[in-house]
């Protein structure tokens, strides 16, 4: 089977189509046919298809989606599906685009996923700042109920599914699946220790699958076209298309659906039209604020897939490609990153709560001209002690970009400290 890195429109199939959010439009283009087909199949076979498609979680961690579904106990009982639409990773705006373009694609994907894992209830958890997007989702859910795609005995089968929307309230940590479930339970959005994994003990202690919006919205295409067709897109280890959000001083920032393994340079210079006039590429954060920064040399020949970016010491993450130009001070940028993680640390684990605070304090000292050069090395020492010691990955997510900036821009930080300002 040959892999292709040609563009295929799966998640963005409704780009340029009028009234793309309306149920009628979605149905005119074959919408809900995948659900109809799925309901004639055995749940276990659906899980196999999703496994064989090779799709990996699009929220950032890249865990194989089908495998996650297969962890749900087969025994009868109350189970939940939750869509993680709490898009908060700085630089990421792709799930918003799905809500804007085709909320029914997400709802159909969720109905298929719920059937596959045996869930009777599904939730979409969205960050509350997406006011318009939430209204679109709620409208789409209502439409799907009226048309019989949600509710009792869908397509005349024994399968029934209830779906509801739930708004977050401004906590980045709720993008972490166990934090999200705590929030959905009406509590502080603090992550829980795994195991047990949510597939076994999730919302209210019941088996729960939490999938990212983009992952779930890809499911109808996979069911319609088959696992092989999906696997043929992208690279051997990274199948399918991915929504990349490119932002910063480029000509055409936006969401681009690209096969995994696509060239970074093509994305920047062709799709996004290159840098804005007068701006020069200094670095790129390829996968959201938690991804270590890459230098122009490391970006040459880079392909956008999990393995290639990991080989450069960074990560694909949520697909948030933030382009940084030479006008940007890495000192201020590091301060922003430090403030962000300090603000968003939920406070449960000491290495994270204190570590993010210490990093933020040192950055404030540097920016205000009160630091010593050795404070830069101290940043690295603190960051090194924050990894792998906490309940969730936020501590690592704060440590990784810090270490990369110290390693790659240590001279810039030290020069700033000597002058007390940016050069």
């Amino acid at each position: 089977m040959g892999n292709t890195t040609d563009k295929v429109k799966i998640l963005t199939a409704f780009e340029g189509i009028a009234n793309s959010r309306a149920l009628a439009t979605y149905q005119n283009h074959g919408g809900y046919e995948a659900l109809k087909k799925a309901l004639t199949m055995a749940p276990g076979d659906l899980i196999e298809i999703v496994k064989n498609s090779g799709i990996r979680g699009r929220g950032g961690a890249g865990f194989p989606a089908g495998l996650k579904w297969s962890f749900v106990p087969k025994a009868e009982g109350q189970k939940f599906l939750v869509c993680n639409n709490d898009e908060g990773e700085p630089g990421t705006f792709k799930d918003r685009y799905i809500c804007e373009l085709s909320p029914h694609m997400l709802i159909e994907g969720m109905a298929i996923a719920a059937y596959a894992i045996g869930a009777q209830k599904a939730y979409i958890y969205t960050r509350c700042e997406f006011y318009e997007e939430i209204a679109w989702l709620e409208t789409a859910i209502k439409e799907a109920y009226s048309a019989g795609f949600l509710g009792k005995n869908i397509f005349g089968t024994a399968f029934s599914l209830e779906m509801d929307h739930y708004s977050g309230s401004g906590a980045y940590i709720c993008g972490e699946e166990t934090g999200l479930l705590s929030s959905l339970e009406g509590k502080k959005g603090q992550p829980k220790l795994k195991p047990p994994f949510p597939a076994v003990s999730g919302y209210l202690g019941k088996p729960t699958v939490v999938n990212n919006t983009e992952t779930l919205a890809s499911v109808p295409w996979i069911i319609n076209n088959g696992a092989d067709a999906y696997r043929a897109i992208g690279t051997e280890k990274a199948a399918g298309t991915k929504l990349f959000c490119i932002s910063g001083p480029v000509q055409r920032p936006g969401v681009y659906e690209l096969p995994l393994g696509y060239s970074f340079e093509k994305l920047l210079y062709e799709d996004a039209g290159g840098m804005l006039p007068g701006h020069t590429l200094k670095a790129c954060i390829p996968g959201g604020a938690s991804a270590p920064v890459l230098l122009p040399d490391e970006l040459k020949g880079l392909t956008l897939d999990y393995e290639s970016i990991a080989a450069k010491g960074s990560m694909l993450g949520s697909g948030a490609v933030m382009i940084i130009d030479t006008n940007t001070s890495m000192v201020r940028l590091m301060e922003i990153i430090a403030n962000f993680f300090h603000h968003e640390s939920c406070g449960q684990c000491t290495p994270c709560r204190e570590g993010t605070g210490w990093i933020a304090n040192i950055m404030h000292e540097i920016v205000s001209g009160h630091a010593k050069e050795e404070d830069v090395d101290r940043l690295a020492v603190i960051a090194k002690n924050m990894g792998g010691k906490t309940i969730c990955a936020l501590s690592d997510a704060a440590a990784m970009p810090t270490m990369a900036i110290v390693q790659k821009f240590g001279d810039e930080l030290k020069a700033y400290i000597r002058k007390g300002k940016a050069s």
Partner: protein
Amino acid sequence: MSVFSESIVTKINGYLGRYETKRSSILPILHELQDEYGWIKPEHLKGLSEEFGLPEVQVNEVATFYSMYRLEEPKKYRVLFCDNIVCHMMGADSAMAKIRHMIEDFEKKTGKPSPVSLQGVPCLGVCDGAPAMLVNKDRFLKVTEHNVQEIVSRYLDEASA
């Protein structure tokens, strides 16, 4: 729940049985209270703790954990300006400085407190339209020092009129 008006009690009751567990309705109810009163008052939290049969601290810790809940009486217009990576690169600092200046100017000129507040917030998820801000629930994109005056003065002028 006498601290709540009749209309809001109907809304609250609509949430109480909506989820698998009553407790799940705390977050949506806090959003409703904020929409109704502009902020969540201490007596609301007390009222909810009675309704839910929870110690007050457990309701308070939920309300304080999430940064989008307002626990102090807000200005009429709350500007939440993204000050994260991309918006910073695209000019958030100077646009925010301009808003701050406008607020100070307003208070100096009119002698009245500004109806607009400004707060930096993490990424709003619209980096393709950076710099971005919310004024209450309305989203504004590509807000720079050059066009921010026009947007924010609408809210300030309304108060001085």
